[in-house]
């Protein structure tokens, strides 16, 4: 650990890009603006890699707020997140150079993109919670700006507002958690909190409450049940936004926050159980919804929900390194899945309905391969990235309770099904649309090539112990998170779990591959109408919260109008009185004089008689 000014520089690079492109973006123009933004993110990535290889870094400005330093901390945990955010972020930046080609808001887009990276790095590297919170709000702002990027259409602006408002609920939880922790320990620095929590001497219930509030924050940001409604609508933004913010990085911030506070959670059976329940619910809900969507981006958005649920389960069962491992693999295959979808949308001139796709494997050979890798990695085929991280989650779930393992296995069957459904609907069958498809330019193909390699191979950093006794990522992360001493499962059990999960995934993928090419049976279309609307969660929330609030607003508006009418009446009364008085101003000099003299006589008379 070294003190170095290079650490804040990692954040400053994309921030600089935001400022330059925000001020002079129009003059820089495309494609220079896109390349500038991408290179700055690459700079952050290289700088971060350099510091991680040196064993981490710290930097602090102690005089920031009274008692709260402006401190950044690059340890192994934030290091891995930084690699994902800046590395995958760089690839998505490059891809967006091709995707956003010809858009009137080209440099504005890249300016927001750099703002997002800067805010996300603040979130990741921040050591004291207020600093994390700045990043937390910053990514929310960037997400809002980018969802509503094409704000000329009302539905996009509405989606942006929805995302922002739902996230506010989570932010409130974060703020309350900070307040509680401050009143308990008098510090908000995470590295100091670790020691204070271990030292004891506080009310355990209050700590649970603080953890609960943090969890609410994480639920909001990571779009877990019951605050999941904003993520599918967030797909209104351009596809690179969905890939970067709503799949690979920002939505995993909630998981990251929980892992950062593992020291508060791991002893707490209530919180852990709650996290498992929420994650499980989200994993299944997202998967079922995804199976019913027709919009290609909404299909992928719901798969993201489901995978985020997997990560929450990993956090809940205490497998913190597995949660991060899944973030890493997920960042690769989900970004790839989104960018493949984006390439298809690009090829079809903006078409997003999968019913007007199909047969793309003939028209877009390279993109087809990317889609194949993404679907297999997401569906959990051996030995792609998604398989190893999902298998680790399943193994820890088994340790938590075999019932959880069964449910999670069910969720991963659904995961295999939605992945293969996406793949089949887009790439197999006959082409059902009218546009003439064309393969993407190299600037969009190369990032996908690299991500495909990642989605194929990145799982090998976290192999189960029966294959690779000391894998890379687990001890690496334990240095930062802490070692919470899990018993290793017996070798035989572990092997059985691996084989079962591999066999189930292959079966589900194969069955799905056959099933989704046929005409859909009656029961499926029935199910689909429910799933298409996200099981009417939006309708439920509208009835329960939004509409009562709207009625309340109407009532208050009526009250406001009443008060305003009163004030307006008072105003016109005063005006009338003024008009009456103005009649005294006749302009006749002798009239004024007479008035003065009468007043004089009255005043003197009053003075004498008093």
């Amino acid at each position, binding site marked *: 650990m070294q003190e170095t000014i290079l650490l804040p520089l990692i954040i400053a690079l994309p921030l600089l890009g935001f400022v330059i492109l925000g001020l002079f973006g129009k003059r820089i123009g495309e494609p220079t603006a896109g390349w500038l933004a991408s290179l700055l993110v690459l700079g952050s990535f290289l700088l971060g890699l350099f510091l991680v290889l040196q064993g981490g870094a710290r930097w602090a400005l102690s005089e920031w707020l009274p008692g709260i330093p402006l401190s950044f901390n690059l340890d192994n945990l934030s290091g891995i997140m930084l690699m994902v955010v800046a590395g995958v972020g760089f690839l998505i930046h490059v891809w967006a150079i091709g995707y956003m080609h010809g858009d009137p808001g080209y440099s504005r887009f890249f300016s927001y993109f750099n703002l997002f990276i800067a805010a996300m790095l603040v979130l990741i590297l921040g050591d004291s919670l207020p600093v994390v919170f700045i990043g937390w709000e910053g990514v929310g702002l960037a997400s809002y700006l980018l969802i509503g990027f094409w704000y000329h259409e009302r539905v996009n602006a509405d989606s942006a507002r929805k995302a922002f408002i739902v996230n506010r609920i989570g932010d409130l939880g974060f703020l309350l958690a900070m307040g509680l922790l401050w009143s308990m320990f008098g510090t908000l620095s995470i590295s100091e909190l670790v020691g204070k929590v271990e030292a004891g001497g506080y009310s355990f219930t209050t700590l649970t409450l603080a953890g609960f509030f943090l969890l609410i924050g994480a639920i909001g940001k990571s779009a877990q049940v019951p605050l999941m409604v904003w993520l599918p609508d967030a797909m209104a933004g351009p596809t690179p936004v969905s890939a970067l913010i709503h799949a690979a990085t920002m939505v995993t911030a909630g998981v990251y926050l929980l892992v950062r506070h593992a020291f508060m959670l791991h002893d707490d059976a209530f919180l852990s159980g709650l996290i498992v329940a929420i994650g499980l619910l989200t994993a299944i809900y997202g998967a079922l919804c995804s199976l019913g969507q027709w919009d290609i981006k909404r299909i992928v958005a719901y798969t993201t929900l489901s995978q985020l649920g997997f990560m929450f389960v990993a956090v809940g069962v205490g497998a913190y390194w597995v949660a991060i491992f899944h973030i890493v693999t997920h960042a690769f295959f989900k970004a790839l899945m989104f960018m493949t979808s984006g390439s298809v949308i690009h090829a079809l001139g903006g078409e997003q309905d999968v019913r007007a796709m199909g047969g793309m494997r003939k028209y877009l050979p390279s993109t087809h391969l990317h889609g194949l890798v993404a679907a297999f990695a997401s569906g959990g085929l051996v030995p792609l990235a998604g398989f190893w991280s999902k298998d680790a989650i399943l193994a820890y779930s088994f340790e938590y309770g075999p019932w959880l393992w069964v449910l999670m296995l069910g969720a991963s069957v659904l995961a295999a099904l939605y992945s293969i459904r996406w793949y089949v609907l887009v790439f197999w069958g006959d082409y059902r649309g009218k546009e003439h498809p064309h393969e993407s330019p190299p600037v969009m193909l190369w990032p996908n090539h690299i991500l495909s390699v990642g989605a194929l191979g990145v799982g090998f950093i976290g192999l189960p112990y029966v294959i690779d006794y000391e894998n890379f990522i687990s001890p690496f992360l334990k240095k930062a998170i802490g070692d919470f001493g899990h018993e290793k499962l017996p070798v035989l059990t572990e092997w059985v779990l691996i084989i079962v999960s591999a066999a189930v995934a292959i079966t589900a993928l194969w069955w799905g591959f056959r099933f989704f090419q046929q005409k859909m049976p009656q029961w499926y279309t029935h199910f689909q109408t429910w799933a298409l609307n996200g099981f009417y969660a939006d309708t439920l929330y509208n009835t329960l919260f939004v509409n009562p609030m709207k009625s309340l607003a109407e009532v208050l508006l009526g009250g406001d109008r009443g008060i305003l009418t009163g004030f307006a009446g008072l105003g016109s009364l005063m005006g009338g009185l003024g008009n009456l008085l103005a*009649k005294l*101003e*006749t*302009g006749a*000099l*002798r009239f004024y*004089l007479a008035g003065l*003299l009468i007043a004089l006589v009255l005043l003197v008379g009053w003075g004498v008689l008093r």
Partner: protein
Amino acid sequence: MIWLVASALLFSIGAYGALTRRTAILVFLSIELMLNAAALSLISFSKLTGSLDAQVVVLFIIAIAAAEVAVGLGLIVAIFRRRETTSVDELRQLRG
């Protein structure tokens, strides 16, 4: 005491003149009468109390009255040049 009565008479004459005259010059003149009535009453109070303070004030009043006359007459002349009248009843454009 007699001076106070004289002062009151002078003031009343001035007030009557200011109210009844229509020409700006005469109104102005009546106002000057009222001002000097006030000065006269100050002098008589000074004699009654034996203090010289009030007489000093009167000296100031005389000086200020001179300046005021210069400004007032200047205004009246300017108005006459523009309107060819100084009747205060015709000059009532400053209505509210």
